[in-house]
């Protein structure tokens, strides 16, 4: 009887460890000040949010030099969720002019760039690395609307969570480009402008 109890406890402990391992998290935190651009668009039946900004990994983050991007994508057919983020070369994001910004980066060539795609199968999120590839975007201000925005947001997308603080000025924009080889455009949710203060903390399964 005592042995059965011990075996049951052992199995329960093992399940608990597996569960903990399945939901072990890693995180990235970025601080940004200066130019940024953000779009939401649909490619290959995936809804994508793409954000590019001058900024750096929060610790250390002594200056506002550096550039990073992050993205989320949710596929409407497979319900797979993709999240990516990383520091990219400054030259990949041209943002000297607030009327026009551009991005061209091959994330497969960026050391340390995270991309994780997860599917919810049998009650568990199963994740694998990727996809990596070329992202090219061209943002043109339309001046349809100008805005100031102070915002604190907590968002959950699949197994990912993001905590964002934003204080920024922006104008509406038109975005065109390619995302992992597929063309996109967006003129309804694109903004480009200047972050006075921005921080993003993204948690992902390990």
């Amino acid at each position, binding site marked *: 009887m005592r042995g059965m109890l011990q075996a049951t406890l052992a199995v329960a402990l093992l399940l608990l460890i597996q569960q903990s391992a399945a939901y072990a998290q890693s995180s990235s935190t970025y601080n940004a000040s200066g130019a940024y651009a953000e779009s*939401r668009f*649909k490619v290959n039946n995936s*809804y994508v949010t793409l954000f590019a900004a001058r900024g750096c990994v929060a610790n250390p983050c002594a200056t506002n030099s550096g550039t990073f991007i992050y993205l*989320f994508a*949710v596929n*409407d057919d497979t319900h797979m*969720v993709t999240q990516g983020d990383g520091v990219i070369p400054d030259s990949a994001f041209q943002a000297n002019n607030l009327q026009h910004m551009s991005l061209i980066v091959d994330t497969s060539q960026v050391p340390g760039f995270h991309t994780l795609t997860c599917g919810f199968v049998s009650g568990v999120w199963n994740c694998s690395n990727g996809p990596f590839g070329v992202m090219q975007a061209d943002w043109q201000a*339309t001046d*349809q*609307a*100008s*805005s*100031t*925005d*102070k*915002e*604190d*947001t*907590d*968002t*959950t*997308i*699949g197994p990912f969570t993001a905590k964002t603080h934003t204080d920024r000025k922006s104008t*509406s924009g038109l975005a065109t480009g390619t995302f992992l080889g597929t063309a996109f455009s967006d*003129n*309804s*949710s694109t903004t480009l402008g200047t972050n006075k203060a921005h921080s993003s903390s993204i948690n992902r399964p390990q």
Partner: protein
Amino acid sequence: MKRNALLTLWLVPALFIAAHAQTTNFKSNGAYAQSNFPNTNFFVGSGDVAAGTPQPFVDYATFIANPDGSYTYSFGYGNIPTSAFTGNNAQHMSLNVDTSQVPGFQTQTCTVSYVPSYTYTCTDGPFGVIQLDWQQNDYSSSRTKQDLTWTNGLVTHGSSSDSTYVSANASGTFLGTAVTDYASTMGTDKNRYITITKGN
């Protein structure tokens, strides 16, 4: 003296604009839905409760850049009948309103041109049917506290909100045009304050 003259030159237009600006305030608690259709930002909220009855309202803005370099924008806002907005279900919300039948609904279309000189002309309308459905798509859920100010032409919106919301797909017709948006949000406002200031 010169400084006073410059100050006067600056103040007179500012006072003129201030004197002619019209401000409308909305407060909302409860269900709301928001979409960014191409060239159109759209919001509908449950509004505040007056005399025991919710006072939902609609607030939208559109923008089109014209080939000749001018641009045309429109805006619309106002309280709508309580029955026009159904937001009791967290999975699905819907709106069906004919703004031409809503007393006091404000809508105007303005064309702004910079050549040969700055001019703008505005006309009332268009009024018509707005029929939209929002369906939760389970992609994301969020909580946001936001202070947002945005200007579109002569209209400035100020919004302060504390919202809990989910992602949604929106589809329907907006003043006769079919629209869809897969990055809409729908949720619950805890004291959203909107101030709309319209210059003449």
